[in-house]
């Protein structure tokens, strides 16, 4: 059986390719890494959520138990406990790991287009709508009955 296509060997690469990759799982964290003061801890957590776990894929350092994520988590808590401001803590990490570590990209020449997207999209849409309205307004504004007749005419044109 199976003689027809039986010679195909699964190369290890192929088999590797078939495997779905999923995040580091079952990461629960360690109690001693947390700050005792709930206010500071929640501040640290908010900061941590803005920092990318470099060895993970699109996870923040708060959502991963990768070694590096854990180190950075502790570092953030150390800085927070030492009295650094939120911005100072983020700068500290940013300084070492670059823009890539920021889940909220800084506004600069590279990201200007990205940050402007809400305005570009909304503005573009509004311009298109007003352009259409102005053009339409130039036409006689037909009422329902007239519209229908016009449609019927157009359909006849189209069919002809």
């Amino acid at each position, binding site marked *: 059986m199976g003689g027809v296509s039986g010679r195909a060997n699964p190369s290890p690469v192929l088999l590797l390719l078939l495997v779905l990759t999923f995040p580091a799982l079952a990461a629960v964290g360690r109690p001693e890494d947390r700050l005792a003061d709930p206010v500071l801890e929640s501040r640290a957590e908010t900061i941590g959520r803005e920092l990318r776990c*470099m*060895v993970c*894929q699109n996870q923040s350092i708060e959502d991963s138990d990768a*070694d*590096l994520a854990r*180190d*950075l988590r502790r*570092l953030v808590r150390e800085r927070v406990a030492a009295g650094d401001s939120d911005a100072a803590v983020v700068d500290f990490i*940013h*300084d*070492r*790991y*670059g*823009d*890539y570590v920021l889940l909220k990209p800084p506004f600069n020449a590279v990201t200007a287009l990205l940050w402007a997207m809400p305005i570009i999209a909304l503005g573009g849409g509004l311009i*298109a709508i007003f*352009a*259409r309205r102005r*053009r339409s307004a130039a*036409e006689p504004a037909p009422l329902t009955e007239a519209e229908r007749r016009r449609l019927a005419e157009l359909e006849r044109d189209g069919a002809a």
Partner: protein
Amino acid sequence: MSETGKSRRWMLYAPLGLAAAAGAGFWVMLRGLQTGSYNPTGVPSALIGRTAPDFSLPPLDGADRPGLSAADLRGPLPGPVLVNFWASWCVPCVAEHPQLMRLSRDGVPVLGINYKDKTADALAFIRRRGDPFTRLGVDEPGRVAIDWGVYGVPESYLIDRQGIIRWRYAGPILAETLENELRPLLRRYA
């Protein structure tokens, strides 16, 4: 349909233009995936073009090599040096080791930083496989590695004579990487 003004015609082509631009971009990415110029998982270093961060690490007990501190990396240096983060528990470090040995035989100073390791394991590693390091600092807590922006071992940094970090390589320097990337850089910054 005559009533459709020219002003609107170009808008009808906008989706096509955007799709074509996106398609071209995707094609470049796919090409880059094969040639290595595009790598969605590669992470750049923030330290390129800067001097090494401030740090001071103790030597490895029993290794008979001095420790490493930022002062050893400040220019002017006699020639470019390679800073290598490694650990005995790191499997790719084993694959990288012969290249480090070769560099050290060729007279390139290789400065080691032993990352999150046990002294005995680290010693056993260099005793068994050879010690390429002219200096060897121990970063047991991994804090200095964070100052360097290291995200895994092995990781190597090339520092030029002025003490500026010129190149960072995340992952093992295999023979190919040594010949095709590191050697030209060593010649350039010599």
